[in-house]
C-alpha cells in the first residue's frame, strides 16, 4: 500500500486560540482611574477569572474532542487496512485460479507437443525404412510436413501463456515502499 493510499491526516485539528488580555500594560491614566475606582478593577479581575474558568471548561471539551478524533482516525486506519487485506485475499484467490488454468494449459501443450514429436519420430522411421512403398513414404512425408507446420503454433501458445502469466504480477517500485 503506497503512502498516498492513507488519505486521512495524521494531524488532529488544532485547538482554537482564545485571547484573554492580561492588561499588564495599562497606561498611567488607566492606573489612576483604577486607583480611583477599585471596584472596577475587582469587577475586571472577577470577569477574567470567570473567563479563564470558562476557557478551562472549553479546553476539557477540546481534550475530549482530540481523544475522539484520534479514536476515529485509528478506526479509519484499521478499516482501510482491513479493506486492503481483503483485496489481497481476493487477488490471491484469483491468482490461484489463473495458475491452475495456466498449468492445465501448459500440461496440454506439453502432451500435444510430445505426441506430435512421437508421431514425427514414427513417420521418420517409416520414411527411411527400406520395406515401405514409395506411395506410403510420400504420404508419411506429407503428414510430416503437416504436423511440422503445427509445432510453431504450440511454441507461440506457450510463449503467450507465459507472457500473460508474467503480466499478472503488478509492477511495483520497491524503492517507493517505505
Amino acid at each position, binding site marked *: 500500500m503506497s503512502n498516498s493510499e492513507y488519505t486521512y491526516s495524521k494531524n488532529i485539528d488544532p485547538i482554537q486560540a482564545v485571547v*484573554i488580555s492580561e492588561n499588564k500594560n495599562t497606561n498611567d491614566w488607566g492606573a489612576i482611574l483604577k486607583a480611583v475606582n477599585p471596584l472596577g478593577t475587582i469587577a475586571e479581575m472577577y470577569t477574567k477569572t470567570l473567563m479563564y474558568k470558562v476557557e478551562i471548561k472549553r*479546553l476539557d471539551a477540546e481534550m475530549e474532542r482530540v481523544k475522539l478524533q484520534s479514536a476515529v482516525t485509528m478506526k479509519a486506519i484499521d478499516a482501510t487496512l482491513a479493506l486492503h487485506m481483503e483485496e489481497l485475499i481476493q487477488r490471491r484467490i484469483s491468482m490461484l485460479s489463473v495458475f491452475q488454468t495456466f498449468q492445465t494449459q501448459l500440461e496440454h501443450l506439453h502432451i500435444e507437443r510430445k505426441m506430435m514429436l512421437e508421431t514425427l519420430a514414427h513417420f521418420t522411421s517409416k520414411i527411411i525404412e527400406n520395406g515401405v512403398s514409395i506411395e506410403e513414404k510420400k504420404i508419411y512425408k506429407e503428414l510430416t510436413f503437416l504436423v511440422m507446420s503445427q509445432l510453431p503454433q504450440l511454441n507461440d501458445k506457450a510463449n503467450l501463456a507465459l507472457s500473460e502469466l508474467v503480466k499478472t504480477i503488478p509492477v511495483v517500485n520497491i524503492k517507493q515502499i517505505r
Partner: protein
Amino acid sequence: MIPYLIGAAVVIGVKVAMDHFSQQERDAYKKWHSKRKEVQRTIEEHERNIEKHIRAAERSYNYHFLVDLHYSSVQIANEAYKLLKQVDVSIGAIQEILYKYYHAKRKWEKKQFYCKSKYKKAEFEQKIQEINEMIQPFSTEKNNLYHQKKEFNQKLFDLNKQTANLKYAIRDRCGYKGQKWYKRLEERKKAR
C-alpha cells in the same frame, strides 16, 4: 476620628478584596495555562500514536502484499523453468529424428560412393535429396526451439531477479515480521 476609622476600614476592605480577586485571577490563569499545555501535549501524543499506527498498518500491508508477490513470482518462475525443460525435451526429440535422417543420409552417401552404376548413383542421389528435404524443416524447428529456449532463459532470469528483489524488500522494508520471514526462507533453502 470615626470617619477616619471608617475610611481606613474601607481601604483595608478594598485592599483585601482586591488581593483576594487578584489571587483568584492568578490561580485561574495558571490553571488555564497548564490546561492549554496539557491539551497541546495530548494532541501531539495522539498525532504520534496515529503516525505509528499508520506506519504499522503500512508495514503490515506491505508485508502481506510483498510476500504474495514473492510467492506469485516464485510460482511463475517455476512454470518458466518447466517450460524450459519441456523445450529441452522437444529439442532432444528433434535431435533424435535428425540423427535418424543423418544416419540414413550417410548410408545412401556411402552406397552412392561405392556404386559403379550411373543409374543407381542417380537413384541414391534422389534419395539423399529427399532426406535433405526432410532435414530442413526439422533443422528450422530445432533453431526455433533454441530461440525459444533463449527467450525462456531470459524470462526465467528476470523472474529470478524480481523474486530476489522482492525477498530483500521484505527483509528490509517490512520490519521484524519481514526479517523473520526472510530468515525462515533462508533456513528452508539451506535445509533443501
